[in-house]
């Protein structure tokens, strides 16, 4: 069935979920993403666990309604910052291709230190490709990507990448502590062995995601959400200035999602720039300062109040009918 919905979870925190793509293939995580964020967002708001960007709380009730989106103050803010600090990530009309096949074009925007960028779009929209291009693993065929003032491949020591936990073999005989220590390898260098400082950093990173007590357990014995937290800990242990996360909230339970969000907000507070790809529009709205909406090309790049509105979403996810129901929006595709 080609049905997907953007629905309201509760008055305070609209929960927007998007489908995987126009092919209508049901996402294996459709249920958790629909159900979990409501509680998670609510907990986060109640416990004030994460530093909310000011404009998000203010704008949420209106953002989903077409035409009601106010060109946000956030745009002005980031414009003001541009001159002051060097950008963590600068995308200038970048086009990316695998071999001769163009995957993504016209990506243009700036991410500053300590800010969070959400990559949104259906499957195959180019979210993972953009992350790989920032890592220097896929070539930029046109335009320019600059990472911490350098070409993508040159900045890898200060960039950390968090893959999806379920891409890793759960039978691999490796402990949680060993996985986190891997984040230090690049800094340690070839041949040399991890020292006391490396172990301390790994331990601290594991504490930051709330899993210090599981250090000796085998990685594969942890739940999917806990494994995702371990991978985030591995990235934190590398002490990056730019952090890239590929769908970190897919199939992740509420507890782990809260732990991930708390750790991420600590990182951004310390000045790390974060790029996170996600299907979860509500979460994107909650945690991001900038949203990059993709569908083979860039639909829009801007503060969530502008980017996560009906027009750009419709452009990204196909010609969907839009119904407005109070504070929530239901997008149905027949």
């Amino acid at each position, binding site marked *: 069935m080609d049905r997907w919905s953007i629905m309201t979870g509760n008055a305070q925190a609209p929960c927007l979920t998007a489908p995987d793509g126009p092919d209508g293939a049901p996402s294996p995580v459709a249920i958790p993403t629909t159900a979990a964020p409501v509680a998670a967002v609510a907990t986060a708001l109640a416990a004030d666990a994460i530093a909310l960007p000011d404009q998000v709380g203010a704008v949420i009730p209106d953002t989903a309604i077409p035409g009601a989106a106010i060109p946000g103050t956030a745009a002005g803010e980031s414009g003001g910052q541009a001159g002051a600090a060097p950008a963590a990530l600068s995308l200038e009309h970048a086009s990316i291709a695998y071999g001769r096949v163009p995957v993504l074009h016209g990506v243009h925007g700036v991410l500053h230190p300590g800010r969070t960028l959400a990559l949104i779009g259906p499957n195959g929209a180019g979210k993972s490709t953009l992350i790989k291009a920032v*890592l*220097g*693993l896929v070539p930029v065929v046109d335009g320019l990507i600059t990472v911490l003032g350098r070409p993508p*491949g040159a900045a*890898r*020591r200060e*960039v950390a*990448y968090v*893959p999806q936990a379920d*891409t*890793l*073999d759960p039978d*691999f*005989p*490796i*402990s949680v502590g*060993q*996985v986190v220590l*891997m984040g230090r*390898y*690049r800094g*340690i260098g*070839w*041949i040399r*062995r*991890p020292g006391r400082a490396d172990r301390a950093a790994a331990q601290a990173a594991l504490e930051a995601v709330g899993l210090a007590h599981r250090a000796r357990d*085998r990685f594969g014995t942890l739940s999917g959400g806990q494994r995702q937290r371990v991978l985030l800990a*591995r990235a934190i242990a590398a002490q990056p200035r730019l952090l*890239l996360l590929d769908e970190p909230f897919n199939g992740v339970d509420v507890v782990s999602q809260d732990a991930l969000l708390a750790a991420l907000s600590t990182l951004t507070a310390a000045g790390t720039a974060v790029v996170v790809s996600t299907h979860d529009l509500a979460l994107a709205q909650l945690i991001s300062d900038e949203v990059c909406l993709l569908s083979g090309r860039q639909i829009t790049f801007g503060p969530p109040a502008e980017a996560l509105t009906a027009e750009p979403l419709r452009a990204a996810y196909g010609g969907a009918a839009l119904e407005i129901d109070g504070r929530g929006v239901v997008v149905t595709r027949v």
Partner: protein
Amino acid sequence: MSTPGDLLIAPFERPFMYRALLEVLLLGTLSAVVGVLVLLRRLAFLTDALTHAVFPGVVIGFLIAGDSGIVPGALLVAVAAAAGFTALVSTRRVTEDAAMAMLLTGCFAVGVVLVSRRESYTSDLTAFLFGRLLTVDSTDITVTAVTAAVALAVLALIHKELLLRAFDPEGARAAGYPVWLLDLVLNLVIALVVVAAVRAVGTVLVIALIVIPAAAARLLSDRLVVIVLASIGLGVLGGWLGLVASYEASVRHEIRLAAGATVVLALVVIYALALLVAMLPRRSRGARSRERRQRRPASSRGAT
């Protein structure tokens, strides 16, 4: 009467048995360590492919320079094959099973065709395929020792990078590691093991030395350090027991057992025992958690 201790040690008072034991202990240690990486990277198939590819090299080396040509011939072809396979895999075209199978049997056939032109066809072929463990001389042992030292040193130096690559190749690439280079190094190390083992156990049986101890060790533990140590222990144990069994059967009971193949059989038995050991505690663990599960609904029922 001979005590069990005599049984395990007495055979090795004979020089040829002592040399065979030294060779098997060296090979057992080397292949057990490399085997753990083969297991982690799921490279058993590639290892098998390498052993097939090395075979014509062994034959050609032997035809050109006799016994002393075997190791250089094997080394040359093994290095070329390791590089070739690395390139193939990195272009991701190795998924075509049929093409791969054709390539392997093709290599093998080249070796057989070449060796079949000799008068001593059968005995030569047997020696190349299954080795002559009991006739290894001190030169063979030196070659194996040097190979083992080089291979183990390389693994010791880059084990953390190899571990990262095995666990999370995408993460390794993202961190800027040259994954193709790590793959090439590991494939070359595997090729070295195959070459080192060619004289003693032949190109067919070496795969058992690499794969079985590591697989058995994996059954016994989830911890990498323990797996490596257990793999070495089991590899060495299999070599020792295999030699003893082959010697006892041949000398005391006049049943001729080929030494190399008996070592492999000993390893298979060890694997079977490890499988049993691994199944027992798991079943009791399963039973315990089942009991817990049954108890829980009962207590919740009591609460309502």
